[in-house]
């Protein structure tokens, strides 16, 4: 029988250097975090393993606070709990002076349980129940109303408690150079927002003090913030002149891009993402234009991923290699999209954790799931890996440890490394017992 023709695998040898498009970034290994060797961490805590750098967390938030502090007399950062609500991570942000920004009853209760004072919590989110609102008003949480039915509910709850809480309204905008996020809050241009403001002020059952606008997520264009700040400030002045209610806080939500690279993005995030100073400068100029000499309100930002993404890495271990039909090299690692859902959005930066010799070739990283969608990184030039080698997936601090799912395996350990090189678990790996603890067997089976 004649053997079937198989085309040869041809790998072009090239020195790290330049091609016609520019320099080829050589893949540098990342063998330690803040002076702690990754191999040491994996031996101590197992693989896969999320590692957070306390130093990077603090550096990022201090950089943003520093930029805000030079321009604004009064500002606050709200730590976006949904981005990462591990208690240790939250504590770092609270120590650095951040408020808690929560979007659900559970997050609200988590913040309160951690000891955060009610006045230091901002409650956003589109689905607040009567119980959530009762708790929030009792604890004097800053509530941002999302829609008319919620407004009615908030009025009822406040009346029941016999208080007139100060609230804000969420405002969405269309006239911005970003995809419109009109599902959160009252729409500005169509007049829904001013209607809501009128209703709050005229009914007198709530007090209107702040405006909240979240213009989107991963916005690489600072000018969008300038325009949003301008529109919000003008809206605040409209409320003040028409209704006599003084808006003391303008909350521009989050959405600053992190150093990750979106799948559709051409330039790598490390180069394309604007710096905090560019965002803050844009906001400052928008506010100044809108205020036109009026007193500057307190500015609140709820930046999430841009603060935490850089601080988290996921360490995984190579389980095997294979060649795909198109001759691409495929590497199977022990961390998949079950614990790294952001792989669906980002081309994560993947690095070896040790020096590796060999020719880089196009490589795809698959996770351990028995599913086609379990792709950690689609195509990256990578030198050959052996079973047991470690790889480090970078910029994974945001959303993964809140959106991860428990699918065919337990969630792994999460550790934090201190600036002095100490390290400790901040969330224990789940075990089979964790899984079984919640399950119950009905009597008839």
């Amino acid at each position, binding site marked *: 029988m004649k053997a079937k023709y198989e085309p040869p695998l041809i790998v072009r040898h090239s020195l790290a250097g330049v091609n016609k498009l520019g320099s080829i970034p050589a893949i540098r290994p990342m063998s330690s975090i803040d002076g702690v060797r990754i191999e040491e961490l994996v031996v101590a805590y197992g693989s896969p393993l999320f590692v957070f750098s306390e130093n990077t967390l603090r550096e990022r938030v201090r950089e943003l606070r*520093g930029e805000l502090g030079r321009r604004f007399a009064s500002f606050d950062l709200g730590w976006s709990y949904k981005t990462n609500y591990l208690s240790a991570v939250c504590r770092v942000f609270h*120590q*650095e002076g951040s408020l808690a920004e929560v979007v659900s009853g559970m997050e609200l209760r988590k913040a309160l349980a951690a000891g955060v004072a009610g006045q230091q919590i901002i409650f956003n989110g589109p689905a607040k129940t009567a119980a959530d609102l009762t708790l929030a008003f009792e604890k004097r949480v800053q509530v941002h109303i999302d829609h008319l039915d919620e407004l009615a509910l908030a009025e009822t709850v406040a009346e029941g408690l016999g208080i007139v809480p100060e609230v804000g309204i969420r405002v969405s905008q269309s006239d911005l150079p970003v995809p419109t996020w009109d599902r959160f809050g009252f729409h500005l241009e169509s007049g829904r927002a001013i209607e809501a403001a009128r209703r709050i002020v005229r009914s007198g059952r709530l007090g209107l003090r702040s405006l909240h606008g979240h213009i989107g997520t991963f916005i690489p264009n600072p000018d969008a913030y300038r325009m949003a700040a301008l529109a919000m400030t003008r809206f605040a002045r409209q409320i003040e002149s028409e209704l006599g209610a003084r808006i003391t806080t303008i909350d521009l939500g989050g959405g600053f891009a992190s150093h990750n690279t979106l799948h559709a993005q051409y330039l790598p995030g490390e180069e394309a993402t604007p710096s905090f100073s560019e965002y803050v400068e844009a906001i400052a100029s928008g506010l100044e234009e809108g205020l036109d000499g009026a007193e500057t309100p307190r500015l609140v930002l709820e930046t999430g991923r841009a603060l935490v993404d850089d601080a988290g890495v996921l360490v995984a271990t190579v389980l095997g290699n294979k060649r795909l039909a198109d001759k691409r090299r495929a590497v199977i690692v022990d961390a998949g999209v079950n614990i790294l859902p952001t792989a669906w959005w980002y081309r994560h930066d993947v690095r070896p954790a040790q020096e590796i010799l060999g020719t880089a070739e196009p490589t795809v990283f698959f996770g351990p799931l028995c599913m086609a969608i379990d792709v950690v990184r689609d195509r990256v030039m990578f030198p050959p890996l052996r079973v047991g080698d470690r790889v480090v997936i970078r910029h994974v601090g945001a959303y993964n440890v809140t959106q991860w799912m428990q699918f065919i395996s337990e969630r792994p350990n999460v550790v934090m490394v201190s600036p002095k090189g100490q390290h400790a678990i901040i969330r224990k790996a789940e075990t089979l017992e964790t899984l079984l603890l919640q399950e119950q067997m009905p009597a008839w089976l």
Partner: protein
Amino acid sequence: MVVKGTHGVRLPGRVPGVGRAVLEILLRPYAQVVFSRDLAAGALVLAAVACMPKLAGITLAAVAMAAVVTWLLGLGRAAVREGIYGCMALLTTLALLAFAPNGGSLAALVLVGTVTSVLLGASFQTFFARLSLPAYVLPFVSAAWLVHLASRSLSPRGGAFSPVVEWSLLPAALTRHSWLDVPASLLFVHGVAPGVLVLLALLVHSRIGFFLAGVGAVTASALRAWLRPDLAWSALDTMASFNAMLTAMVVGGVWFVPQPSSMALAAGAAGFSVLVTYALMPMLAMLSLPVLSLPFVITVLAVLTAARMRQQDRWPRSAAPADRPEDALARHLSRVRRFGELAWLPFRLPFRGEWYVSQGWDGEHTHKGPWRHGLDFEGRTAEGKAHRGEGRDLRDYVCYGLPVLAAGAGTVALVVDGIEDNRPGEVNTRQNWGNAAVIAHGPWLHTVYAHLQPKSIRVKPGDVVTPGTEIGRCGNSGRSAVPHLHFQVQRGLALGSPTIPFEFGDVVECQGEVPTLGTHMLPRQGTFVRPVHRDDSVAQAAALTPGTKIELRERNGTRVELAKVEMDLLGTRWLSSPHGRVAFETYDNGLVLLDCHAGPDSLLRFLVLAWARLPFDQSAQLRWQDSLSRRWLLPRWSRLLADVLTVVAPVWGGLDVSYSLRRREGAVEVEGHAADWSCRTVLSLSGPHASHMLFVEHHGKTHEIEIGQADAMASEEAA
């Protein structure tokens, strides 16, 4: 006496209410003789008087009557309880009894002497207050003279109601038999026992005062030995001596901070008063008037008015009003240590956020000669560079366009605008200061903000600014190669006037791992500094709203102390309990403890260390140094020794404490460490009714104290 605590715990307490008021009314006038408010000192003076039992009865009657007269005249309850008029009546009565021992009716004497001295007391006080001078014993001298002069016109047999008739100018009571007659003569009596008791009263009131009285007496003796060596001791010398004692005590211990220089001044003044006594005696003898304490009053007024002509308040330094010299000294030392010598106007940094000091005083570029006290500030990126990108565009520079703020309250005096920014690297030497603003903070005190962006200056001459008002934007005009802010303080108004030294208040120096708070400092070249960023939640948590009742409760259940927040006329907040009181000042950037008078059994004493200073800053961590008055923390008896030690070795009076602050969810934790003290305060940020925890370790013993609003804690317990 015991006071019942709110939670059923019985506390030892001071005598409350009516009983205490009666004691104050009766004993304070005696204490005032030695310039004290201390009731123990008053009791000792009374005892000295009581060595002649008849005198005790008469003077007590006079003091009580003075209180009634004061009250009837509507001079106020405070005047009654402070005993100043009572003291005048007491001295008048004593003088009348001493100088006219064979006078007429006692009742008439007490009545006329008391009413006259109270009236004159009120009158002189009004008059001298306008001159900002003390009247001291002038009402007593005048009242005594008045009665004396009037009595000469009265019939020698004026019946039962003639007060005084015969006077001796140098009564036998003032003829010295022993050294102890000199202190006794303060009360116009003689004898060893009264002398010892008066000295004891002085000692109880103030060790420094006691020492000063000695300085006065020795000066008087020395002068006598020099000026009248051949004459026998007479009542005149006794009068000279007690006047010298009073003068030295008041000059060295009341009006000036007790220090070697004020001791010297006290001795000089005492000598002066001796001369005045010798000078007045023959003159007044012609009028048949006794000298009494007039030389003392004349001398003090002369010293105080002369001191007003001094160009600098130094050597000795004037003291703020205090109960006793020890307090004045402690307060002065702590003020210098804690708020600096230049605290006359605490400037704030003229910008927001963290900036880099690129040129300090006596800098290598332009801060030389008359302009040596200048500072240059510029912004830096997280990587420590002055610009982003290549730095070819002005907008690449971190500080370009950032707000520049007024360093203090004042009026805009001068604005220069319209000078173009230089391109990076270029310099405009023709218009050295570029666009600039000058703010006047008072006569001959100006701050200058130079090299601003053209057309960015938002103020015009005559505008009133408060600390932090935006003046303009940081630019690159004038003699500036890269965008930066030049700041200086000068006497003159014109740009280019010579500079003078200054300090900033509440500077956060961002060097090393944990930033340091400098409460009064000059930023050094090469450091990163920022002003305090006010954290409202900390300010609210530490708010001491007047009228609030605060409960301090020791955790192991032994002690509960109720204190109330009160505000005095100067805006100082006092936390007062039956056991003591602590003074605080709250301002934009924080809370500062100013003073403490608390007994050893008071829980308020633990607040001294814990709340000595609380910056309302947003930083995650912060460190600062403070130096408290050791006196505040010492038990009563060691305090006596410490008082004397502090005069000669001021360093000893300070207790250096290092503080560090850190945060966690909903709380701020402050730790303080001193030599044998340490404390940790957990300040809860969850609203106005939250209670705070205080852990103090002293001599190996830990005290755990909960501090909260009294009403809130009570209702919590009920729930």
